[in-house]
């Protein structure tokens, strides 16, 4: 069993370099061939042709794209992502790290709350299926999924900050803002958006499990419904849940693009948007490649976890 797992993990992770190559080339080309010359940004609109050529040579823009790619990836491997164009004295790595310290805790707390609430609502709906509670719960949370997060957060600001005056209307401080009351509104918005998807997913899966023979058998054993819910239903729902958890975390991250912008949070999402508009291509490249690597890596890890957790997967192969 153990060597099976190691073998499978090795096999899955062996694919990772191939993904890395393909995605980095793809992202690099997209950024490089996108309209807009980075020289314009560095040199400014009034620079002479001479200065522009000097800059182009200095930064290596005059070399063929594949050469640029190779030298960029060489630096990338040493975790040197170059310097930002907008903040010319600062390295991209440093800038990103500052933002990640704000966004990551926020995203993590919001998604943990969202997923937990989603599981709870979904399970509840399953056990109360067909009743009015089932309908009310699911359609109620559907409202939050239907309203875009950019409207939802404005509604919360309007209600809790401006009308009731309970909470601040914007982010306070840098990474330590997560410990202030100003974290409540963004966390509430981000988690609510994800709840309904999660709840519906859980409900669909657990409804299917409720029809399984082993749940009937558990009832015939005389087991208490709460034990059936945890030992039988949740225990089996956990497997399919694992495969969607990571994609769900990334949805939370997407939601934060609007939330950070509107609530004035100095986080990664907002920084990325600003960098796109400012054509700060070293930042865009780093965010793009690191982001895609992170998501591929986590999906591979989930596959491996699934293999470990489900004894049947090894049978099927």
């Amino acid at each position, binding site marked *: 069993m153990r060597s099976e797992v190691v*073998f499978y993990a090795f096999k899955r992770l062996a694919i990772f370099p191939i993904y890395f190559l393909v995605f980095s080339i793809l992202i690099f080309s997209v950024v490089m061939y996108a309209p807009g010359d980075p020289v314009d940004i560095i040199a400014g609109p009034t620079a002479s042709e001479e200065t522009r050529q000097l800059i182009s040579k200095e930064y290596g823009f005059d070399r063929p794209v594949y050469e640029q790619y190779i030298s960029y990836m060489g630096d990338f491997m040493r975790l040197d992502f170059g310097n930002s164009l907008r903040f010319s004295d600062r390295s991209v790595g440093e800038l990103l790290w500052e933002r990640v310290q704000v966004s990551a805790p926020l995203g993590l707390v919001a998604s943990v709350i969202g997923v937990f609430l989603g599981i709870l609502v979904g399970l509840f709906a399953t056990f109360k299926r*067909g009743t009015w509670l089932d309908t009310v719960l699911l359609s109620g949370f559907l409202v939050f999924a239907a309203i875009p997060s950019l409207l939802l957060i404005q509604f919360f600001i309007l209600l809790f900050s401006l009308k009731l005056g309970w909470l601040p209307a914007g982010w306070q401080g840098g990474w330590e803002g997560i410990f202030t009351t100003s974290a409540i509104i963004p966390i509430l918005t981000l988690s609510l958006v994800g709840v309904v998807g999660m709840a519906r997913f859980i409900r669909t899966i657990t409804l299917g499990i409720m029809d*399984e023979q*082993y749940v009937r058998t558990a009832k*015939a*054993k*005389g087991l208490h419904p709460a034990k059936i819910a945890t030992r039988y239903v949740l*225990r089996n729902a956990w497997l399919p849940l694992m495969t969607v958890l990571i994609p769900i975390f990334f949805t939370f991250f997407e939601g934060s693009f609007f939330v950070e912008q509107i609530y004035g949070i100095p986080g990664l999402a907002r920084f990325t948007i600003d960098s796109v508009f400012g054509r700060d291509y070293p930042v865009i490249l780093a965010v793009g490649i690191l982001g895609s690597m992170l998501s591929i890596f986590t999906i591979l890890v989930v596959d491996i976890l699934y293999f470990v957790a489900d*004894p049947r997967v090894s*049978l099927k192969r």
Partner: protein
Amino acid sequence: MERVETLLKVRGLTVCFPQANGLKTVVKDVSFDLNRGEILGLVGESGSGKSMTASAICRLLPEKAQVRAGLVDFEGTNLLSISEKEMRNKYRGKRISMVFQDAVGTFNPVVPVGKQIEEMLTLHSDVPRKNLREEAEKLLQQAYISDYSEKYGSISAFLSGGQAQRASIAMMALATKPDILIADEATTALDATVQAQVLDFMVKTARENNISLILITHDFGLVARYADKVVVLRDGEVAEKGLVKDVFSRPKSAFVRAVLRDLPRMDKPLREKRSPEASSPAVLTLEGLHVDYPLFKRRGLLQRRSGSVKAVDGVSLTLQKGEIFGLVGESGSGKTTLMRAVLDVLPPNAEVSGNINVLGSDIYELSSKDNLALRRRIGGVPQASRQSLTPRMRIRDLVGEGLDILNLYESSSSKGKEKEKTERVAELLEAVGIPLGRMWDYPARLSGGEQQRIAIARALAPNPEILILDEPTASLDASRKNTILELLVRLHDELGLTYVVISHELSTIASVCDTVAVMKDGQVVETGTPEKVFGSPEHPYTQKLVSSVPVPPKPAV
């Protein structure tokens, strides 16, 4: 004479399901008694309400079902009127237990089997915590699971169907020794010899522990062999009840008489058999056919071929034109692989050697074009007809699909083709006895028997000469088995077909086949007329197979 103690009294039990147009009664005024230590057969065809009756006793009915009337008196307590909590704590599992058809699925698929047995012990016995494992392993051992220590820690997917059902009996009955065990079609999905093993174990468990057993089944033969008393249900109502020996030898109701008359029987052929001396040209010849599946073993990071599974291991057969040839054997004996080899639909990793000669040509030497031309002359009806009918295609398109694939049309315009297709499908539906009005229906709206007919019509569409039928009656009720077999015999005679009938049911084979071959572990162990092979079997395996089949009771006329 022992003192008779009535344990369970069911009186006037009526169960309904709400439907769009009012209530549908699935169990109607059912009454019977169950004595301590007795074996009661609750028998009927699908939809007769037998499972609903059992579920109602345990109060495990589907949520939508309503008990409209009746009484389930268990030692003076009406189980239908106590609270759910009392039912759960005092009765379910502890006094009244159940085992189900899907034995592997009865265990939580991700939890070791032994742990689930321990759960039952924790719930209803006072086995101390530290002895749980020992006790669970002992139960598995008593269930004839030889590697009980290993199986204690494995999940149900690693158990065979028979092992899983015995383990489930150990868990649901042996562990807590309830007063009543209800077995809901508990052996239906199992092979004949395994079914006999499981039933023997279940009956032994019941007898030794003075447990009353309710056997729910559609198999009258099984009831006749194992039960003391029988309740025959039909459309939710009791058609007849009494001692097995009385009901089956002198049935009072017309229904039971008709069922017993219609059961496919080993000793009641449905057609005039060919004389064994008659000879006609050979249409299908297998010579030394081997089908192997490669097995791999991993060493470090490399996979190495370590051997093969011999699915078919050197089979030689000859079928003559017009013959009905039967192939019996249990799951894993290679029957289906053999059929797939002949139809050239083996999985890509199969390794075939030997010769298959269909209608004069060796199928593995044909060009793909000639092979396609041969395809229309040999057809197959797959085992699970329900799954083989694409749910999103209408009956007309399902039946006529072969015409499209092989382009068997005279006209070249698409309009002309459509017209030909409709005409041909109408012809086929008439031949298999499906009303023409169903041509535009989807398969989900058909009953199991009708779906089987559609699958047969589909195979007949290109006008084949040979038809291979894989378990044509397996999923059908007793009375429908006979109608399908009669249909097959009629089509055989009218169209001059040659059949290969694959079945694990000896009665099906015996009633229609001229010749039968018994397969075990990929080899044919015995061949001959059914009368000879089943009447005086020579091979020990055939003897075991014949003796484990419950013989349907034969009413005195």
